[in-house]
């Protein structure tokens, strides 16, 4: 089980093979079968990255022309026997410096998530339904930043469309476990199966947010990462831009770097 990693953000599916070969994808199969086939192929192409670390800036726009930028670092560890693990921690603004957010992804159940509050040196569990809450005042929810394993959705292939001049598969994703969304519609480019765009629908079925992934870069000749992601909230007019830099693959992180205990002296 590997990550499909759309909302996981930190790990975008990658691939160098062309669109031609998606196992199990064929016009005479059902939309559900084809949707699953696309998701599985995207997942497969993202496998084998080991671990990554990167610097991250998060800029919040309030819709009235004001903006503010935060600085973070991210670390990700690939797991073959379980979902991937991700860690995000703040470097700026000063009053939340050291605040950290840890996710243990699971393919078959809700992710386990924790928040670390450095002022009281306390690790706090995040309730799974609270995952729809805003991550540090941004338009990204805890869920968006969590693990996005392939088993977390049921899929449906909705056809082909062109996004920013690229041929794309249009894919519906219906959350299986606890989620703040009723459904998502994702567009993946046909050549590399990279996420280009996702529409998020709230539990009432109304369009809530749109994610645009841009500036895809190829690392290690195999792994695509979007260096810019923009989340637009259609209901509030607010948006958040995430920008990555200094991606490092295989930096020697191990499971202990992603345990709750590691949070207490993380800086």
């Amino acid at each position: 089980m590997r990550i499909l990693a759309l909302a996981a953000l930190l790990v975008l599916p990658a691939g160098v093979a062309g669109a031609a070969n998606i196992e199990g994808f064929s016009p005479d199969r059902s939309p559900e079968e084809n949707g699953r086939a696309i998701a599985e192929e995207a997942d497969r192409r993202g496998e084998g990255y080991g671990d990554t670390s990167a610097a991250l800036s998060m800029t919040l726009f309030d819709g009235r022309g004001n903006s503010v930028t935060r600085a973070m670092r991210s670390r990700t560890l690939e797991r073959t026997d379980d979902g991937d693990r991700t860690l995000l921690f703040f470097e700026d603004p000063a009053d939340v410096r050291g605040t950290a957010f840890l996710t243990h992804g699971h393919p078959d159940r809700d992710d386990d998530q924790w928040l670390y509050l450095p002022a009281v040196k306390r690790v706090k569990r995040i309730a799974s339904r609270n995952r729809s809450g805003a991550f540090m005042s941004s338009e990204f929810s805890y869920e968006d930043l969590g693990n996005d394993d392939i088993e977390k959705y049921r899929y449906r292939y909705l056809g082909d469309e062109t996004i920013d001049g690229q041929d794309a598969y249009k894919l519906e994703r219906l959350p299986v476990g606890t989620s703040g969304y009723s459904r998502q519609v994702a567009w993946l480019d046909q050549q590399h199966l990279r996420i280009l765009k996702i529409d998020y629908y709230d539990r009432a079925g109304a369009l809530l947010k749109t994610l645009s992934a841009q500036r895809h870069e190829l690392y290690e000749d195999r792994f695509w990462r979007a260096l810019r992601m923009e989340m637009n909230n259609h209901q509030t007019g607010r948006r958040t831009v995430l920008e990555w830099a200094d991606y490092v693959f295989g930096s020697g992180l191990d499971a202990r770097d992603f345990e709750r205990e590691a949070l207490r002296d993380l800086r």
Partner: protein
Amino acid sequence: MRATLNVKRYATCASALLIAVAAACRADIESTDWRWQGELTAQARWFTESSLDARQDRRDFALLGQIEGFRDFHNRKDRVALKLRGRADDRDAERNLTDITELYWRRRWRGGELLIGVNQEFWGTTEALHLVDVINQTDFAGSPDGEDKLGQPMIRLSLSPQWGNWDFYVLPGFRERTFPGSRGRLRGPLPILADAARYEAGEQQDHVDVAARFNHYIGPVEFALSHFSGTSRLPLFTLADGTPLEVAPGAVGALAPSVNLGIAPLYFLTDQTGFDGTLVSGGWLWKLEAIRGRDPRGRFNAATGGFEYTFAGVGGSGVDVGLIVEYQYDSRPTDLLITSNDDWVAGARFAFNDFSGSEFLILASTDAQTRAGIISLEASRRFGSQWKGSLEARYFSAGDGTDALSLFSREDYWQFSLTRFF
């Protein structure tokens, strides 16, 4: 005298650490530079009622400083860290503080880590009361809510086998709880004389305490078992001349404040076993902390538990509202610092998710029998990226007057803080 002992102890710790640092520096492979940060806070408190003790005042002003830094070696396997805290109060010398909150060397390996030096550790899960959290002494003069802690010298060995995580502690060097002095607030009618502290252990502050904790999580269930053996961080009290202060708050309140009268902390030896657990279910966080220990009066049990439920983005506003309900039980008789015998706590936390990170917390507690209680408010917001303003207020209600909490019924206050980060 006691202060001298502590300084000596710290000097020893510091020297040991410096040797370790020197050793680490020599093999200077993949080390990072020192990274420093600090903060400076101006804090003003206003008490809404004047005290019966003429030495006290309704206003109080303090400056707080904090500086911390760390350096990693050997591709983050080794770390040395330092954190110093200080406080200067314009009225009450007992509120002045110089604390080494952290000063340690830590080495990690695949299955665990070893930490030697001074550090701060938090155990537990509940919001209003921290029963199982016993490693660090409380800086009660700093804040009555028990969230401020003093650094604790320790050797900590952490092991992470396949199942769970173990922490073993050797804790040399006891820290006394800070209390406001005779000129300071927030206190009862009689000042607590920190210098008159007495110990059950013959070695007094040099008694070496030990502790261990096992914690684990299985999906939505987290739990920890802990044991502490040594000098209790939470003292009992006697009158300063040694007369036992049997718990009769009414009687204490009736004593006229006098320069010569005071209450002395008694730091007794204890064995305390604790359990804390959290259960995640949908939007619910269920929490429980329970302890069993002994004090000079005998065995006791105490427990606190409840839930936290969060509504994310209430009414499409982006405001997260968390509801907190907890119950507190304690078999010990009510005491200056043990007021949660049969109490309910309810409150709400608002996270506004705006640019300035505005937060607001209101908690109200009340004793089911005596009706004594506390209402507390905490609010904070950022100004720019380097400033933060905070407001804190507490209102004490005496109930029927038989609760130890009624001793604080004149101590309602408002506190304003402005912090600059560096």
